[in-house]
């Protein structure tokens, strides 16, 4: 019982620090996700062209990104590029996460577009649409809807991966937890507390995804 009370006290006492960190975690996650969508879409379209060079570029990007650890990518942007360009920690973390997620989301989009029946493409063409209009008005609205469950999944992964920004000294949730843990010699309490924050965020996010899925629901043919 006293353990529970101690935990509650620690939770309340640390809440100002954690809430501030929560804002940073959400900022990194949101920025990187917003940036990752156009990146993903760009590489999806490269992979859907009939030009071999472009397809290879898209494949190479996906291979490089999926083939190296995210923490390495974050370090490359923050420490590795200092001779060329100096990026601050926030930009490095957000950009690394965006480029990283772009590769995965690009594959999600590609799969969703490939799952749209050939008939939809043919109907669009037979109505005089060029490729841009066909994707913009007919294919992408359906493909994005089909991507939402996987996108929701990817967003949750990003939220948690943003904890790696702690290693380039960003004061986000995980960094606050380890710092407080070190200061109080009570790592477990703060690791549990930070887990509660992550779980809360994921819970809200899952709900939002469900709502979006419901709103976009129309039975497929």
């Amino acid at each position, binding site marked *: 019982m006293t353990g529970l009370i101690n935990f509650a006290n620690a939770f309340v006492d640390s809440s100002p620090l954690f809430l501030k960190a929560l804002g940073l975690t959400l900022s990194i996650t949101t920025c990187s996700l917003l940036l990752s969508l156009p990146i993903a879409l760009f590489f999806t379209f490269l992979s859907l062209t009939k030009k071999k060079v472009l397809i290879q570029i898209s494949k190479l990007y996906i291979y490089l990104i999926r083939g190296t650890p995210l923490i390495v990518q974050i370090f490359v942007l923050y420490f590795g590029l200092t001779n060329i360009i100096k990026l601050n920690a926030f930009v490095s973390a957000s950009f690394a996460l965006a480029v990283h997620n772009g590769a995965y989301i690009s594959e999600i989009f590609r799969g969703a577009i490939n799952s749209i029946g050939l008939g939809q493409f*043919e*109907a669009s*063409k037979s*109505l*005089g649409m060029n490729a841009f*209009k066909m994707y913009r*008005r007919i294919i992408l*609205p*359906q493909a994005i809807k089909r991507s939402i469950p996987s996108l929701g999944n990817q967003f949750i992964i990003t939220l948690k991966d943003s904890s790696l920004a702690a290693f380039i000294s960003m004061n986000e949730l995980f960094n606050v937890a380890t710092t407080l843990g070190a200061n109080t010699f009570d790592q477990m309490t703060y690791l549990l507390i930070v887990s509660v924050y992550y779980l809360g965020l994921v819970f809200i996010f899952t709900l939002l995804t469900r709502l979006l899925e419901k709103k976009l629901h129309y039975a497929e*043919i």
Partner: protein
Amino acid sequence: MQKSNVLLEIKGLTKRFGQFDALRSVDFCLEKGRTTSIIGPSGSGKSTLIRCLNLLEDFQGKYCFENTSIDMDFKKINEFRLNFGMVFQHFNLFPHLTVLENIIEAPVHVQGRKKAECISEAKALLSRVDLIDKVSSYPSQLSGGQKQRVAIARSLAINPKVLLFDEPTSALDPEMVEEVLGVIRGLKSNLISMVIVSHEMSFVKEISDVIIFLDKGEIIESGPPDQIFNNPKSPRLKEFLANVKS
């Protein structure tokens, strides 16, 4: 046959899928305001032929529309396809759009016409196919026959010169076939040409001006319905008709 009446003429159409010849030097001619049907066993190339007509497939051969020769590198191929309204076996309605949005999609967003004007036209088309009460339904809420009637209205909305029907009733439950055939029957006029791929032999016989019998990618016989059905010359057509009737 007067040359001026010819709308579409194709000579020596050959279509290969890898090693397989889907169509072998097919000659095809369509006159204004006339209806041509393509019949033949499955796998004979009927659907491939009708898809070549609006250039959904590329092929080798000479293609001429309204006395203008057109090749596959043709830059305005998308606009050119607006000469054709196509109705598919599996309807291919856009599931994320309502019935009305399906119909006005191309007139508004491809042809760039005024939305209000397109909506009133779309409603007139929907009355014509007897579906005015389904204006704001989604395709998933319609029966197969209703979907196909919407698809017909959608193909009419672009004011095409030719209507292409690729097995329009093959995916329908038997009791819905007649409602769709009835609509197609009502479209026949001197103003619009139609090409129909169908297995509904009595319908084909009744509606067509010309019938083409296709087998293994070649035209075996063609002529008016009376000749094809009552006086077939080639043994393959005789055999096909005997199989269909039984």
